[in-house]
């Protein structure tokens, strides 16, 4: 029963990882940018919600109404003044720029809020600890379940948006061929700006989820970036449902690791990430080798 509970907790934790990974995966697939400031943006959104709750008494759920549009606006500024300018200098410069930006965000937050850890849980009343007991001895945290459902809804919504709307199709076309979209009348610059704004809204939701279910501090962005990266890579970058799967695999691995050993939480997650990475490389090479053998036999 303990194992079932751990796996269930891992699946629900995977919902959070899918939330934080989807923005990273979205930006990489559309613009080819690896945003190293991704985790720091999530923490920034968490602090914004905390400030609204602590000083203005606005519940974090209502605070999202203010913070998410602000994150979208930040995405527009981020795209126009950082990514667009730095991408003119090649592939590496945007990566370095976002790395520098993450250091700036972390240190500005540290300067203003200090090193103390904070959480939005105290502002959620009993939602932060309330749970269901679907099976005897197996408890499901209501907040974790809602976050998992939010992840499914967000990924499903993004999937529908990309496949059913004109803007979604334009984003997919821009991701496929940035230069050719101009030849059908699409402004690739505007599309990239919309995509970044959408990505930062998802980061804002992920930051809220993190701050509600756990604690955060100014330097918590780095580990969140690593979890997002691992979930995106396990699930396959560019695939939204793959991102959910990647998040769940990472979450379950961490939960099982924690059950095996108190130090095993992070190690198990990283181990699964490495195994998937090696397996992909190995199977990729094997399939290439097989293809080469078949081709050489066919050509005689």
């Amino acid at each position, binding site marked *: 029963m303990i194992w079932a509970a751990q796996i269930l907790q891992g699946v629900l934790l995977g919902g959070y990882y899918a939330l934080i990974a989807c923005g990273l995966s979205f930006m990489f697939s559309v613009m080819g940018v690896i945003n190293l400031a991704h985790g720091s943006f999530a923490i920034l959104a968490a602090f914004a919600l905390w400030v609204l709750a602590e000083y203005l008494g606005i519940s974090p759920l209502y605070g999202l109404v203010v913070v998410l549009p602000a994150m979208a606006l930040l995405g527009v500024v981020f795209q126009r003044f950082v990514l667009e300018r730095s991408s003119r200098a090649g592939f590496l410069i945007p990566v370095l720029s976002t790395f520098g930006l993450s250091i700036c965000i972390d240190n500005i937050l540290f300067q203003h809020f200090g090193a103390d850890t904070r959480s939005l849980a105290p502002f959620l009343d009993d939602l932060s600890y309330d749970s269901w007991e679907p099976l005897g001895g197996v408890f499901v945290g209501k907040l974790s379940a809602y976050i998992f459902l939010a992840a499914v809804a967000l990924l499903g919504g993004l999937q529908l948006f990309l496949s059913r709307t*004109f803007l979604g*199709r334009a984003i997919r076309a821009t991701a*496929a061929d940035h230069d050719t979209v101009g030849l*059908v*009348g699409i402004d690739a610059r505007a599309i990239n700006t919309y995509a970044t704004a959408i990505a930062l809204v998802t980061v804002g939701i992920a930051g809220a989820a993190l701050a509600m279910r756990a604690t955060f501090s100014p330097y918590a962005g780095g580990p969140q970036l690593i979890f997002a990266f691992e979930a995106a890579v396990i699930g396959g970058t560019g695939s939204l449902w793959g991102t959910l799967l990647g998040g769940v695999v990472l979450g379950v691995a961490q939960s099982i690791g924690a059950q095996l050993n108190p130090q095993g939480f992070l190690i198990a997650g990283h181990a699964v990430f490495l195994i998937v990475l090696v397996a992909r490389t190995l199977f990729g090479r094997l399939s290439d080798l097989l293809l080469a053998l078949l081709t050489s036999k066919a050509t005689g």
Partner: protein
Amino acid sequence: MTLLSVRDLEVRHGLLRAVRGVSFEIAKGETVAFVGANGAGKTTLLRSIAGAHLPVGGSIAFAGADVTHVPAYLRVRSGIALVPEGRRLFADLSVTENLLLGRAARSRGPWTFDTVMDALPQLRPIHNSLAKNLSGGQQQAVAIGRALMTNPSLLLLDEISLGLSPVAVDGVYAAIRKLIAMGTTIVLVEQNLDRAVAVADRLICMLEGSVVLQGRSGGLERARITEAYFGLAASASPAGAHV
């Protein structure tokens, strides 16, 4: 009435002068074919008109307005559509999705999803297929349809028969003849001289970035075109001989 006017156009690829002082005019409703060997500068010229390459000198005027430095997406909205060499379809989008992207031009005109399907009926049974799964001829039809969806006043067709089977080329040219009959102004780049002569009102021959010969399709002798095409004739002057 002049629809497109190109004056002393200079386009570079790095240090290479791909287009050198090219000038010509195209009237509304006219079909003009650019011919020439590989590397003559035809594709670069067409891409410059569409806004995919910015020139370093000269000017491009479309419907009376200077569009020399206007970005490609705004040129599409003003009525210039390019069917690029190699089709450049969005491979993971369906035929329908590729066509509907043409609505980004926000221009009004006779071309809608239904009228494009009527003009290119081979697309109807495959409208849900992904572009990457289509044959070369089908992909070319989608590329033409996508350009038509922008309701262009000027349609630029770049090497549309390249890599296609003779049957597929016949199908594509049948569609072009329909467009010509509807009064669409067309500029095409074509290496197949017979095809070009058969559909174009006027032929412009390029060599090493310059116009070396131009005239009415029926008024140019085949031998003279061939000489200009390969740069064999002394008469093929850089200024461009008119017939």
